[in-house]
């Protein structure tokens, strides 16, 4: 930051400038002549000495936080200068401060009426031609930021940024900081970084920094204590360090920021919390989970600032982040507990704010508390960890809450579908627990003596449960019908994702789930399409390849295309069962271990062979089917990898062959009740 104004490095400056131009909507189309329009506002009336006095007094009172007193001067100013943009604008601002920043709806309305009065528009950004108007756009963008409308705010701030050079210095400074914040929030990381560098050259370089700091006196609310030059530069430097740290955390270049964070940790005395969180975050993304837990548990004074002032609940964040850590080390139940605690803390905090009036939803609490509610983020986290804990129904409830906010997130839609699938079939392993399951071959025995009947358990083939109830797909219940809708959304949202590895990875999962759900719902044509698209994906994992062939075979059989189906059931396709692994962002994967059954080739082979036996039955080759079943049976061992359906199918085949006596023998061998 020691680069002085007079040392120029073109190679550095020029590409930077052009980069910013691209990001900020047409920087180049800056007012055709910024003087022209400003003249209309400036010179429509020359300013009298009286007016100057009023304005000075208003500013002085404002800087002393005497908003009521400041507001008095605006009555006179407004009367004598009704068409002065700055007067109209500042009056709205002072009135807003007078309400302790609580009448946000009114302020928004006042800003919009000012937009109207001076023929500028937030919708048509081309109307912003005069650098003097930037301030109202900035303030509106700031409102949007606090309302969590980051994209909309960014659109405005990008336009404002095109006037950064002629802009009054203190405003320019604010615009830059908000711009970085918004770019970071919207994950436009490269632009955020170039903006950070821009700020460093513009504001932190000695001469400009001095100038900026000198103008601090006119910055409202910072008036309380006289600024020491170095402290102010230092504060900005720390702010930029934090920005950089957030950039590196998001890009995964954690090494670059750990040192900075530690210096932040040591350097910042008053507001210690944010660097602590960032440091814990850095440990977390580096996989030092224990260190992260330690920092979160000990390093954060959660109740140091009342939430009315800070506008956020640190305890919510601490619990949430602890939940993230436990989730990653494969303790989803513990993680869920923490997320639940975070949710409670969040709701506790929410209750301390006045309930907003329906007509004025933004009012009644201070501007900086509008973004307090973190429920949707925490609910998402809770939903995913509940899913990993094998609790699909509560997971579904959390995720349906979250999807109301993050409806453009394809992963969330997939997660919802997964909850539906898990509610339908919780575990593939169950069928393989022969010791228990073999007894379920028979559902009951009725009659006695000559009329004794064995009633076979038709539910042994658990995978087929066609819903006969007419149910709207659009009702969010954890059923496959709604699941299929979620998957459609997920697929739609990833259609333009291209071939980025994370998109391909996601798409494989969506396709596998879609094929599964379609088969369950009886839509074999669509199921076949999904299975075929799955098999066409690049770098397909062993598990997905196996599933793709299995699903395709089943769909083809239902469609009556037996030979094609048999092709998919060849054992050659089965070489490995590796689970799909997502592209990794950091050195250590930030995800819990996933377990899936079948987890060994014997079990997978038996499943494939079993389905082949079913196909042979349908082909009418009962003897062949019986042979295949026998070949599966001989692999039986201590940790049996044989599904109970093998017994049921053998029973069926014998019955169809007219071997009722063999069938009876199988029943009696299998079920304890006959022994």
């Amino acid at each position, binding site marked *: 930051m020691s680069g002085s104004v007079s040392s120029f*490095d073109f190679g550095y400056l*020029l590409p930077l400038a052009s980069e910013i131009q691209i990001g900020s909507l047409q920087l180049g*189309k800056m007012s055709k002549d910024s*003087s022209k329009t400003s003249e209309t506002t400036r010179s429509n009336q020359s*300013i009298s000495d009286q007016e*100057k006095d009023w*304005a000075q007094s208003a500013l002085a009172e*404002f800087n002393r936080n005497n908003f009521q007193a400041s507001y008095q001067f605006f009555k006179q100013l407004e009367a004598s200068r009704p068409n002065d943009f*700055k007067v109209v604008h*500042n009056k709205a601002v002072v009135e807003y401060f007078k309400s302790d*920043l609580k009448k946000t709806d009114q302020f928004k309305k006042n800003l919009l009426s000012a937009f109207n009065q001076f023929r500028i528009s937030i919708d048509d950004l081309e109307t912003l031609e005069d650098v003097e108007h930037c301030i109202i756009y900035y303030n509106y963008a*700031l409102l949007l930021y606090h309302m969590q409308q980051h994209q909309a705010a960014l659109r405005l701030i990008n336009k404002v940024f095109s006037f950064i050079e002629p802009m*009054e*210095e203190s405003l320019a400074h604010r615009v830059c900081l908000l711009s970085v914040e918004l770019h970071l929030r919207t994950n436009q990381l490269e632009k955020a970084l170039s903006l950070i560098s821009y700020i460093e*050259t513009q504001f932190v370089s000695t001469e400009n920094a001095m100038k900026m700091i000198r103008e601090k006196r*006119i910055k*409202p609310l910072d008036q309380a204590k006289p600024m020491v030059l170095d402290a102010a530069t230092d504060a900005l430097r720390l702010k930029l360090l934090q920005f950089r740290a*957030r950039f590196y955390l998001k890009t995964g270049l954690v090494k670059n920021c750990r040192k900075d964070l530690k210096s932040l940790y040591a350097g910042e005395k008053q507001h210690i919390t*944010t660097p602590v*969180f960032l440091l814990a*975050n850095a440990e977390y993304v580096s996989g030092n989970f224990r260190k992260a837990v330690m920092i979160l548990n000990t390093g954060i004074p959660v109740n140091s600032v009342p939430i009315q*002032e800070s506008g*956020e609940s640190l305890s919510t*964040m601490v619990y949430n982040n602890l939940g*993230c850590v436990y*989730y990653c080390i494969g303790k989803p139940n513990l993680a869920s507990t923490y997320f639940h605690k975070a949710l409670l803390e969040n709701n506790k905090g929410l209750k301390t704010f006045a309930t907003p009036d329906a007509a004025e939803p933004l009012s009644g609490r201070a501007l900086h508390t*509008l973004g307090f509610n973190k429920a949707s983020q925490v609910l998402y*986290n809770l939903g*995913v960890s509940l899913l990993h804990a094998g609790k699909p129904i509560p997971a579904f409830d959390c995720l349906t809450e979250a999807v109301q906010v993050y409806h453009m997130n394809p992963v969330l839609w997939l997660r919802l579908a*997964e909850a539906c699938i*898990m509610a339908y079939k919780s575990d593939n392993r169950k069928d393989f627990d022969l010791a228990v399951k073999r007894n379920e071959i028979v559902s009951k025995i009725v009659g006695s*003596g*000559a*009329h*004794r*009947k*064995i*009633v076979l358990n038709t539910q042994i*083939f658990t995978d087929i449960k066609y819903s006969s109830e007419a149910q709207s797909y659009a009702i969010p219940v954890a059923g496959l019908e709604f699941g299929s809708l979620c998957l459609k959304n997920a697929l739609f949202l990833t259609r333009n994702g291209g071939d980025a590895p*994370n998109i391909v990875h996601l798409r494989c*999962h969506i396709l596998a789930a879609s094929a*599964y759900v379609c088969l369950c719902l*009886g839509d074999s044509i669509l199921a076949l399409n999904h299975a075929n698209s799955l098999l066409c994906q690049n770098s397909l994992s062993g598990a*997905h390849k196996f*599933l793709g062939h*299995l699903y395709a075979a089943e769909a083809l*059989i*239902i469609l009556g295309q037996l030979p094609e189906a048999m092709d998919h059931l060849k054992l050659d396709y089965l070489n490995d069962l590796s689970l*799909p692994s997502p592209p*990794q962002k950091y050195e250590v994967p*930030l*995800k819990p271990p*996933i377990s899936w059954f*079948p987890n060994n080739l014997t079990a997978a082979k038996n499943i494939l062979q079993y*389905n082949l036996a*079913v196909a042979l039955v349908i082909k009418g080759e009962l003897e062949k089917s019986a042979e295949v079943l026998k070949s599966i049976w001989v692999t039986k061992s201590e940790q049996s990898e044989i599904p109970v359906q093998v017994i049921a199918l053998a029973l069926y085949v014998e019955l*169809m062959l007219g071997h*009722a*006596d063999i*069938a009876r023998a199988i029943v009696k061998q299998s079920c304890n009740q006959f022994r």
Partner: protein
Amino acid sequence: MALTPKQLTLLLGILSEDSCEKQSIEALISQFHQCFTKQDSFKVGAALVMLLQQNDLLPKPQQCLVAIVLLYELYRSDPLTQHPFVPVFIHLLNPPDLANKNSARPLEYAGQLPKLSPAEKSFLSQLIKNGSHELLKKTATHIKANKNLNPPVADLSDVQLALAERRTETAVTARYATTAVLSDSEPRMNWTFPFSDDASIQQTAEALLTGKTPIVDQKFKPEFLRLAPPLFSCDDELTWLNPDEPPQYKIAYDVTMCVSNSAGLEARTLMTRAYKSALTLQQQQHLLAELTNDPKLVYHIGFTPNKPNHCILIFNGRSFVSQLPGLVENNPLIAIEVLLKLMQSTHITEYFSVLVNMEMSLHSMEVVNRLTTTVDLPTEFVHFYICNCISTCETIKDRYMQNRLVRLLCVFLQSLIRNKIINVQDLYVEVQAFCIEFSRIREAAALFRLLKQLEHGEMITTTTSSPTMLTTTPSITTTSTTASTSFAPFAFISPTEKKS
């Protein structure tokens, strides 16, 4: 959808051994119709099929025959191909061969239908073909005993065809469904007395045929093993929360309200004048002081490169109409100061491009020269400017002006070369050609000598490159004109100096 226990009792009453043996089939049919309505047809039919399959529940052949007739009777008014239980009749008429290839024991299928005698088969085939039969007036015992019945003649291939077609419309796996009930009579020694009576038949039938989800509706059919896919795994999926410190982003107050920028206004007035005529020394100093005081002022004094489109390439030869040329011509010192202030502007390249496209003049050259010594101008700008100047010199018609400009350019180039602003090698061809063309002018000759010296000093191998040059060089020196020795434009320009 199942029979109520009461309905089942009624059905079993009609099918009782006693009534089947003694009453005419017609009478049984009319009794049957009294008990059951059309709506009950399907569930009654399903119950009848189940009773036929588990034929220990209908121990006498007469009972079976009555059950078959009643099954037919249910949908008698419909065409035979629409009869839902037509496969039963086909099966009864074409029973599977029960001989076992591998063992002496006959084959036994699940839910096997009773085997009919030839007389019964003939009766059934006539019945379903013609819709009625005279023998219905008789008892089942009579029909069974009738030896005069012809062997079955009815051709049912059309029905079978229709049936096969309908089969393709059902789900594949449903086609292979079979009953879930497997007869398993206990060994005789375990039987309790009485071995078989109406009460125990009723009990078993009730267990199979009534209830909320009756066993009669359950079908045993093979299904695929369908694995649920593995859970999605995603790196860094959960949201980690860091404080945003929302209070740091505050609403801004416009501090420039009612601040009449008198300094700025004055500066703008002076600036507007400066485009058109030279300012006085006092005015210049005043403007320069204002510019130094307020670094943002430069953006407010109405000084823009006036570009029609930001994206236009800088070197496409298009001349920008701008205030800059006027400022350079009239007040080069101000121009230099302003450009230096604008160095950090994102538009600086556009100002440069306007500058290098200006008409060649003493002042523009002065400004470019000053910029080159103060900041690192992009080399391509300087090169472009030089080429521009050379072509101006070559094309100008006025001989006097030409001499003047050539001298100017030569001194400028020497200055650039001596200060190592440009590398001669990059422009060697152009500059050398220029020197030769204007070899009559003393400064050009001097420049040429400088070039040669550099060449000797730096590139020893190229000494023999151009003998013609060497011979022309002395003539340049001898024909040198009365050059103004006072001509030293790049040393210093007094602020008061007026354009001559």
